[in-house]
């Protein structure tokens, strides 16, 4: 009996040490280069996720056809995180520990990014995402003092202007180009992206000496905003900022229209297609910031490439997929390795990466791009037009 116990103990020890050895990070030097991705392929924001996937796969296909990177093919390991921060963390952990990817292209949902960010800091496999909430890249971000210097999360990168930067673009345009001075806003308090856009908008407007006359919230499942909109109507603001997801934005403008609101709608980058189909002519007269203008001649090559591959027009986040995976592959190439730490270092030092949304220079202090202009688009009926191709707002 004693012997059996000893034997079992010895066996456990051996097994334990074997699993310890295999748990230490190993960089695979042969076989395909694995790039991870977690995205919302089902649930409310599934269109963004599936579009991002299409862009990402297109980029990888092209790279592989040209012989891959460092002589190795690139493989995308993809998990659906269903608009759930918990699922996103699970997917990220699986990519980092089991699949041992070189880097991860993360979902663009800020709530998921806020959950993944601290895990990434521990697992030390870098994440590149479009999640705009500043706290994903700089956890100590203070919305009341956005310019205070803080440390970035070493393993999280943002590849588009952040919430405060995007809010400044549309607020700046409204003040300087449209001559507005009083504003109200209606946003989803449960969505970090909407909340930080709202905070950024209010910060910029107030700093510029203009007035926020009303701030109204709703909850994630709500579809009826008539109570808030009735109050907003009475405030008679020049502009109404509506920075949420597509269906919520569409419901808000339809109801505002039904109540006869006269304020000019100001949107976020979720007002891009398919908002034209979902809201229709109710969005008439709105202005919103966007990473690209679809009539920009310098990006038409991507439209053709995408059309040829998928037989449909690219929507916003197919551009993100192309750019973000390209950014990751560029960093792997520069690092000359698939070691996540080396890839991270290369990402931090990335300057002049040519993306469809513009030239990306990563600021090592914030892990966000600096000086990236945005387009300002507008609605005329249910048609989207370009008001300014490249717009940089005045400093507040």
């Amino acid at each position, binding site marked *: 009996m004693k012997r059996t116990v000893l034997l079992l103990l010895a066996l456990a020890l051996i097994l334990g040490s074997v699993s310890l050895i295999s748990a230490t990070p190993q960089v695979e030097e042969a076989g395909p280069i694995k790039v991870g991705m977690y995205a919302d392929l089902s649930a409310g924001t599934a269109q963004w996720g599936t579009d991002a996937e299409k862009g990402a796969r297109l980029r990888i296909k092209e790279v592989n056809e040209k012989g891959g990177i460092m002589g190795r093919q690139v493989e995308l390991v993809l998990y659906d995180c269903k608009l759930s921060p918990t699922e996103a963390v699970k997917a990220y952990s699986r990519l980092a520990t089991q699949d041992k990817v070189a880097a991860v292209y993360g979902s663009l949902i800020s709530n998921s990014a806020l959950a993944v960010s601290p895990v990434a800091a521990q697992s030390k496999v870098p994440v590149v995402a479009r999640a705009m909430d500043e706290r994903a890249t700089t956890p100590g971000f203070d919305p009341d003092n956005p310019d205070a210097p803080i440390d970035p999360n070493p393993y999280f990168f943002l590849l588009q202007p952040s919430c405060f930067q995007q809010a400044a673009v549309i607020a700046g345009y409204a003040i300087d180009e449209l001559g507005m001075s009083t504003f109200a806003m209606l946003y989803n308090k449960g969505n970090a992206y909407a909340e930080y856009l709202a905070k950024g908008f209010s910060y910029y407007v107030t700093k510029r000496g203009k007035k926020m006359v009303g701030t109204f*919230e709703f909850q994630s499942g709500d579809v*009826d905003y*008539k109570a808030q909109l009735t109050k907003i109507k009475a405030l008679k603001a020049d502009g109404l900022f509506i920075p949420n997801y597509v269906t919520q934005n569409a419901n808000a403008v339809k109801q505002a229209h039904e109540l006869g609101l006269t304020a000019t709608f100001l949107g976020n980058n979720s007002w891009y297609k398919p908002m034209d189909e979902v809201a*229709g002519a109710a969005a008439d007269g709105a202005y919103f910031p966007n990473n690209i203008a679809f009539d920009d001649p310098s990006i038409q090559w991507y439209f053709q490439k995408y059309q040829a591959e998928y037989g449909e027009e690219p929507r916003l986040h197919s551009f993100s997929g192309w750019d973000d995976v390209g950014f990751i592959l560029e960093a792997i190439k520069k690092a000359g390795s698939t070691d996540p730490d080396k890839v991270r270092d290369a990402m931090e030092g990335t300057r002049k990466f040519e993306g469809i949304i513009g030239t990306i220079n990563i600021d090592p202090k914030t892990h966000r791009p600096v000086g990236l202009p945005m387009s300002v688009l507008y609605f005329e009926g249910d048609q989207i037009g370009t008001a300014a191709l490249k717009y940089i707002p005045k400093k507040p």
Partner: protein
Amino acid sequence: MNWNILLQQILNGISLGGVYALMAVGFGLIFNVLKFSNFSHGGVVTLSAYIGFFLSQHLLPSFLVTFLLTAVAGGLAAVTIERLVFRPIRRKGYPVSMLIVNSITVAMLVQQFFAVTLGSDYYTYPVFIKETALHLGNLTVSKIYLLMLGISAVVLGGLSYVIRKTKIGIAIRAVSSDISTPSLMGVNVDFVISVAFFFSGVLGGITGYLLGMAFTVDPFIGSMILKGIIASIIGGMGSILGGVIAGLLLGAAESLLIAEIGAALTPIVIYGAIIVLLLIRPQGIAGKIAEVKA
């Protein structure tokens, strides 16, 4: 708050409250008959919202025709669900809790099915009403909401008549008060239950169509059923009149509370008030205490 805005807020609330009432009654009808909370009603609502969209967008851009077809489709969906999921359990004499579990599963199944198959696109009904605002003095009434309120009133009035005056209505009420005795008197209980599910499903179909038309269709639109369940509880489970009054009240209260204290605090106040109400008056506004609470 000035009177105009107050009146406007109540009007906003009541029009949405009409839809809450539709959901409360559709939900309560089944509670009355089988004494369980039929969460699959939310699934019927979601399914109908999509059916209404496909009919009106791709088959025929006529409001009346697609509306009626969707209502019937909702009814048939509910009957099918009853046949496949509830009847076998009922026949085997399993406890009511099994019915509840299955109804939740059906609701989740429908939601997940649409999330996976159609979740990556947005669906909007055709524009049936061009100029959507109607001005009455200083008040602005949304024509879509007015239509919702009108339809709810007609449908619920009709249902109330059927339940009280017709033979099948009397049979439903008989089965509601005692499920085993009517069969001794030659009533086909299975058939009566099917009819009750059909009525409930028609209400679900109408709810789905109206929600889809007023908002944007997505796989989670059926989760609005929660408001209907709340209204049903306030009204006294199973009472049509109670459900209607509670639906309208809930809509108006919600609208006023959101305007005054904000969207974040509103659910806290409403849920708190419901607990207090049920402690003081467990039978709800109009109901009598149901024998099995679930």
